[in-house]
């Protein structure tokens, strides 16, 4: 009946030394206990209100007990509200965590700092009803243009012409100084500690909102002017990133001004004038920046991401563009997430690889610089595709694989792969005239040999150092093999799928197969490099 169960009464009775409390007594006492508990809590709430608080603390309960002439309960004093933890395995059992303290630690610990003394600070919450934009005040939502100026204008001359008066924008002296100083640091001393401090300040201070239009203008100007100045560009991008981090700034209205400069730093042909400039790093940084912008403002700005991807894809697909541009585009697309990669990058991968391959080979591309760039691009592609496949495979373990199930799956997998192999041999034997590019018998033999090796022995062969973009003739040779092989496997795949559907395998299988196919094609393109992106259990499943 009462919210206090009889057992509680009995437990408490035992704790104070009454061992044979009859259940009737507990039943009679329980309502009284609840009544007084409620009464004490009501008094405690009064004490809380008079202490100008909205959270009840143990002190309030003590004060309420005091009011009722009851001795307070000792041992629960705290500066703030108590934090209860839920007991594991119980729905409505809570406890206060009581940590074990090692006495040695207490003795050896240095004396704690004296708590800071209470003090008062003073600021203007409003001046003649208007809140000044200072850090002490909550950030102003929107800076509104004076609306009455326009109305006045119309009243005076009655012309239909809508004259837009220049909006009076008051910028305080302090803010002007702040802006000048930050601009100066960005231009000249981007390595200094001070600049780092400035970036932190840009990322955290409220009250900077009035400066946002000035910063966007400044960034746009300097980027277009200073494409040859690598440190400057990097500093500017850091400023952008800090501004984006600042929770008090509404940067949305200025995004359209910022984006061109940011994208420039991602896909420009040349960033910086000297060879030593590590423009790759800048491109990576900017790619992440772009991705964070898309993540944050994508929902608000409907076409932001579509426009961005279009720009990047155009840069990627244009064979006349420089390798550096391709690199930026790939990094940008890669940072936008695995789905973008899967939808936009992967379908074009094959054609692109055909373009890229000769650039990477020692024999065909003599220019060291160009070759290095090509390998860079290759690395970027590999990473993007790898992340995509990793993400794809992550979705899988939706079945919490009981052992027999897995066995069955792996069996089936082996079956399919065996079938695949069989099919391929059959196909090759049956319709040799259909093969055009890779029709010569020699290479076929190579393929027949290499494919089982690759499919079963990856774990043994150490992953080659493609990632590090060290040019090794062996790996590139392997590469060549694999690309030629790709054409065939594609055909085979068509067959396997036909086989599968005829076997009427479940829908789940198809899905799995899709990714399996994707993995296979990627594997064909990249070799073992891709395998480092796949987690062990999945790898086991797919091999």
């Amino acid at each position: 009946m009462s919210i206090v169960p009889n057992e509680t009464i009995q437990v408490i009775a035992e704790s104070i030394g009454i061992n044979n409390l009859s259940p009737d007594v507990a039943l009679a006492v329980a309502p009284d206990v609840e009544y007084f508990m409620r009464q004490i809590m009501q008094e405690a709430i009064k004490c809380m209100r008079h202490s100008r608080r909205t959270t009840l603390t143990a002190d309030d309960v003590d004060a309420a007990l005091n009011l009722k002439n009851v001795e307070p309960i000792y041992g629960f004093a705290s500066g703030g509200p108590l934090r209860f933890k839920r007991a594991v395995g119980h729905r409505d059992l809570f406890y206060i965590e009581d940590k074990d303290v090692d006495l040695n630690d207490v003795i050896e610990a240095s004396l704690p700092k004296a708590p800071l003394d209470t003090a008062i600070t003073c600021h203007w919450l409003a001046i003649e009803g208007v809140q000044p934009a200072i850090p002490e005040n909550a950030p102003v939502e929107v800076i509104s243009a004076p609306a009455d100026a326009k109305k006045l204008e119309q009243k005076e001359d009655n012309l239909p012409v809508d004259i837009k008066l220049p909006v009076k924008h008051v910028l305080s002296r302090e803010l002007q100084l702040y802006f000048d100083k930050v601009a100066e640091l960005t231009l000249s001393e981007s390595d200094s500690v001070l600049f780092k401090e400035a970036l932190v300040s840009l990322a955290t201070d409220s009250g900077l909102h009035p400066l946002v239009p000035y910063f966007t203008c400044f960034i746009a100007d300097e980027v277009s002017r200073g494409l040859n100045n690598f440190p400057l560009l990097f500093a500017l991008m850091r400023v952008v990133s800090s501004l984006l981090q600042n929770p008090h700034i509404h940067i949305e209205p200025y995004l359209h001004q910022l984006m061109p400069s940011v994208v420039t730093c991602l896909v420009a042909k040349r960033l910086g004038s000297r060879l030593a400039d590590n423009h790759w790093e800048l491109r990576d940084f900017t790619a992440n920046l772009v991705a964070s912008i898309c993540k944050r403002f994508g929902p608000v700005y409907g076409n932001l991401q579509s426009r961005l991807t279009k720009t990047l894809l155009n840069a990627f697909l244009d064979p006349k563009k420089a390798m550096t541009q391709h690199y930026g585009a790939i990094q940008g697309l890669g940072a936008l997430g695995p789905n973008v990669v899967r939808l936009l990058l992967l379908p074009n991968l094959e054609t692109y690889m055909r373009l890229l391959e000769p650039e990477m080979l020692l024999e065909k591309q003599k220019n060291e610089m160009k070759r290095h760039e090509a390998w860079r691009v290759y690395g970027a592609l590999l990473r993007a595709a790898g992340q995509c496949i990793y993400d794809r495979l992550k979705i899988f373990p939706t079945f919490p694989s009981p052992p027999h199930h897995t066995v069955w799956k792996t069996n089936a997998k082996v079956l399919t792969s065996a079938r695949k192999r069989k099919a391929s041999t059959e196909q090759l034997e049956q319709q040799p005239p259909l093969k055009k590019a890779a029709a010569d018998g020699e290479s076929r033999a190579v393929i027949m040999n290499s494919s089982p090796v690759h499919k079963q022995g990856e774990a043994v062969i150490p992953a080659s150092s493609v990632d590090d973009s060290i040019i090794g003739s062996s790996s590139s040779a392997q590469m060549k093999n694999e690309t030629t092989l790709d054409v065939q496997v594609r055909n085979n795949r068509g067959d396997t799928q036909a086989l599968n559907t005829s076997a009427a395998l479940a829908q789940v299988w198809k899905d799995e197969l899709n990714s399996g196919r994707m993995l296979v094609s990627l594997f064909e393109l990249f070799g073992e490099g891709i395998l480092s992106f796949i987690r062990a259990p999945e790898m086991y499943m797919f091999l």
Partner: protein
Amino acid sequence: MEEEKIVGYVTAFLKKKGFTQTEKIFQEEFQHNKSCSSLEADIGNHLLAFSQLETGPARFHDGYSKLRTWTYSSLDLYKHELLRVLYPVFIHCFMDLVAKGHLQEARNFFNTFREDHEMMHLRDLQKLEGVLSPAHLQEMEFAHSLRQSKFNIKICEYSNELLLQHLHSTQSTTILGIINEHINFQVTPGQPSLISDDPEAVTLTGSSQEAANQINQKEIHWGLLEDSLEERLEKSGAFLSDSEKGEGEAKEGENDETKKRSSEGGKQGASAKKVKKDKGGSATGKSAKPEANNIPAAPRVKPELALPVMPTEVEQSILEDLRNRVQLSNVALPSVSFYTFINTHNGLSCSSISHDGSLIAGGFSDSSLKVWDMAQLGQQPASSLLQGENDTSQNEQLLGQGGGKRQYTLFQGHSGPVYAASFSPVGDFILSSSADSTIRLWSTKLNANLVCYKGHNYPVWDVQFSPVGHYFASCSHDRTARIWSMDRIQPLRIMAGHLSDVDCVQWHANCNYIATGSSDKTVRLWDVQSGECVRVFVGHRGMILSLAMSPDGRCMASGDEDGTIMMWDLSSGRCLTPLIGHTSCVWSLGFSSEGSILASGSADCTVKLWDVNSSTKVSRIEEKGGNANRLRSLKTLPTKSTPVYSLRFSRRNLLFAAGALAKSG
């Protein structure tokens, strides 16, 4: 033998239903004719059967649920009136069940229908929820008062008839009994009222309704004091502006308007005016006033207390302030200076700002009272030179104790959390009230405790200096408010009448009245001279946390723990408009010096500014047109994460606000 049994039943039945008169008569008649028994036996049997039929605890449940379904399916036009009946019936059904000992059924009944009333009466329900035995009903003040008093419900003629018809037709005598016993219908002729959330529709008063009505019929003189400083300033102003006739005329035009307004105001408080005429002194004072007087509103009244004499230099500085006062209106908003307490470690329980804003006091839960002099903060090094010798020596002592350089003066003496502090008008004294049930008077000049006033028996929640100083009022958990003067350690008056804690107290501008807000959700106005309650203001739904009196003495604002602010008309005792906007406790309220703007500070970390003039005007329209309208909120000033503990308009109309920085998250 059988007969006696029956008589026992009948008397029991009558007692149960509360028909004491009938019972008496029955007893008398019974004594007279014991002879004719055959008929009575018959009736007795009938009654016996009847009472057996009715005693089951289920009848409350059934009766109430029947009434509830009928009410919810009634016509929309009458529905909101009929819904009002449900709540009183609900709580009395519950209490009847408890009183009869059907605890399990009572709990079930309560939980079944609880949701219907949660929106309007959450707090009452929480209180009642704990009642689990008949003994609790006796013990608990709130339940007791509910049992003793009647609900007043305004209802139109037709709704009343509908209700009675329904009850008779369904023969639910239980519910009928409850309604007869505990509800007092105020039947109004004509159509049901349109406003569905009229706060006065359902009221509950401690004593009977007549008494409350009587209380609110008493006259009060809400006019300002004769010969106040403002008045003197205007006189001198009139002297100055004599040369500029044109301006003076313009002023007169204004005056006409204000006079009109004042006459309107006079009509409102007609009763108040009558008494003025009776009182010869004040009437002559009124007639003697020059025509160019700018003060509208009520006739001047004489102080009922012997007021202290103000030193001339203080008077001069106040006059100077008044001359330099910024005129505020709904287009000219005040500047707000905000004092933030930092590193309070959750210990600040109150704060107070002196009339000129230069001194800030904070009361802490560690029993200390700390006072900051904001004028000194800016110029630390120079300050010691400027201070008097006495001061410096004291300060040095304090510094020696504290070890480091302290920016404030520490007052120690209380032995419990300090719940309120109040500066005297001149700023040379501070009063503080504490959980140790004492009030202490401190001197800011000597930095020392002067007096400890003991009188309350429980924590003193609030203390306020009167507008002229010397007198002060306090209120406490012991349900009383008390008036004190600085020179006596015993209270001068004790105001008793609230049904629960008295949480806040405020002086009227003319010092003849104090207002108190209480946890019983009412605000009362007390006459300082007689100690009588002269007004009861009913309408809040939570405990009252803050009060403010308008400088013209006409209105009062009160804020509660739900964030509702109510503006009251003192003369009529009615709510002008509820001001809704805050989402949490309203800790502090303040009128600007000329009374055009009300500022409110709340636990939701905002200061809100409200337009007072529009609110009073709107209410007048409302009175005529019968249309509900809300007072305009002028501006919301959010702080970063600082609940606003106190507010004060300086005499020059600069708004000071203070609060302790709460750590976010």
